[in-house]
C-alpha cells in the first residue's frame, strides 16, 4: 500500500507542476487544445496510481511529452496567427446589430437554447436588448447591449469618480498580513491603535480587516454578535497603492 501512496504523491506533484506551468487560464477558460491536455493529464496521472503492475515511467513520460507538445503549441500560437486559428479557431459573431446570425449559429452547432441560456447566465433576460454577441474560442459568449439598455456609467453624465484600486487585506483570520501593511506604508502599531477604540484587544479578535483606496478601514470581529465597522482612517491623498 505504501507503493500506491508513493506513486500517488509523485504523480500528483507532477500533475500540479504541469498544470501550474500552463498558467492560470488552464483552470478556468480553456482553449480546445488546453482542454484536451487537461483531460489527458488527469487520465495519465490516474492510471499508474491504481495499477501497481504498470511502470511509473508509463505515467511520467507521457506527461512530459504532453508538456512539450503543449509548450510548442502555445509558442507557435503566440507567434503565428494561422497556427492560433488552426488550434483554437476564431471568435464567431452570433448576434450582429441585434440580428441573430442563423447561418453562423448552424456552422458552430450552436442552438438558440444555448444562446438564451448563456444570455441568462450573464443577466440578460431579453434578447432584443443585445446588440452584439460573440462566441469566443473558449466556448463563452460575450454579449454587448444596445446603447440605450447599457447601465448608466458615471462618464455618461460627465461625473468624475475617485480612483478605486484593490483594497488591501490587513488581517485575515486573526493573522496580520505584514506584506500588505508594508505595501500601504503602515505598521503593526498603527493597525493595533485603530483596533483598540472598537474594543478589540489585538489582531487575534479580528476575522477580516481591509483598507480600501478611499482610506476606509473595514473590520469584522470573530466574536458572536460582532458588528461590521467601517471607519475613515486615512486621507484619500495618503493612499498610494
Amino acid at each position, binding site marked *: 500500500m505504501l507503493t500506491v501512496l508513493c506513486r500517488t504523491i509523485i504523480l500528483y506533484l507532477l500533475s500540479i507542476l504541469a498544470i501550474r*506551468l500552463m498558467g492560470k487560464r488552464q483552470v478556468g477558460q480553456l482553449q480546445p487544445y488546453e482542454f484536451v491536455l487537461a483531460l489527458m493529464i488527469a487520465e495519465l496521472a490516474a492510471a499508474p496510481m491504481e495499477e501497481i503492475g504498470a511502470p511509473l515511467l508509463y505515467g511520467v*513520460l507521457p506527461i*512530459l511529452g504532453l508538456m512539450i507538445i503543449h509548450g510548442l503549441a502555445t509558442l507557435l500560437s*503566440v507567434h503565428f496567427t494561422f497556427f492560433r486559428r488552426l488550434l483554437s479557431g476564431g471568435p464567431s459573431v452570433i448576434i450582429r446589430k441585434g440580428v441573430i446570425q442563423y447561418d453562423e449559429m448552424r456552422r458552430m452547432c450552436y442552438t438558440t437554447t444555448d444562446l438564451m441560456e448563456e444570455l441568462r447566465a450573464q443577466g440578460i433576460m431579453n434578447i432584443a436588448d443585445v446588440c452584439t454577441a460573440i462566441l469566443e474560442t473558449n466556448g463563452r459568449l460575450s454579449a454587448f447591449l444596445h446603447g440605450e439598455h447599457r447601465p448608466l456609467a458615471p462618464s455618461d453624465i460627465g461625473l468624475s469618480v475617485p480612483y478605486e484600486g484593490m483594497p488591501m487585506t490587513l488581517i485575515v483570520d486573526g493573522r496580520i498580513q505584514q506584506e500588505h501593511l508594508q505595501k500601504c506604508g503602515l505598521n503593526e502599531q498603527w493597525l493595533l491603535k485603530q483596533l483598540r477604540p472598537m474594543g478589540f484587544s489585538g489582531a487575534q479578535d479580528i476575522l477580516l480587516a481591509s483598507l480600501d483606496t478611499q482610506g476606509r478601514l473595514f473590520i469584522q470581529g470573530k466574536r458572536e454578535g460582532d458588528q461590521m465597522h467601517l471607519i475613515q482612517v486615512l486621507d484619500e491623498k495618503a493612499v498610494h497603492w
Partner: protein
Amino acid sequence: MRLMLGTVIVSFILSILLVFFCGMTSHRICVYFQLRMKETDALIRKAGWQEALSMVSQAQAYWKAQSPLLSMWAPHQSIDDVTSGLQLLCISIEEREKYHALLYSAEISAALSLIFQQDAFALKNIL
C-alpha cells in the same frame, strides 16, 4: 513566454535523457542475459552442473541488483516472471534435471526478450 520555452526545452531534454537511459540500460541487461543464458545452456547440455549453478547464481545476483531499476519502465509482471524463472532454473540445476533446466532457461530468455521487445522503438509497438 521564456518560462514556457524553458519548460519545453527542459521537458524535451529530460524526456530524451530518460528514453536513452532506459534504452541503454535495457540493451545492457538484455545482452548480459543473452550471453549468460547461452553459456548456461551449453553447460547444462555438457552436464557441467557446478559451473552452470555458479553462472545462474551470478545472473541472479545481477538481476536482483538491476530489476528495481528496470521496474521503472518494464511491466512488473514480466520482471516477476524472470525472477521466478531464475529461481526455478537454480533448483532444477541443483536437482540435475536437464530437461527442466533447459525449459526454464528458454522461459527466462523468452520473458526477457518480451520485456525488451515491448520497450523497443518499433512501429509494431507504436501502433
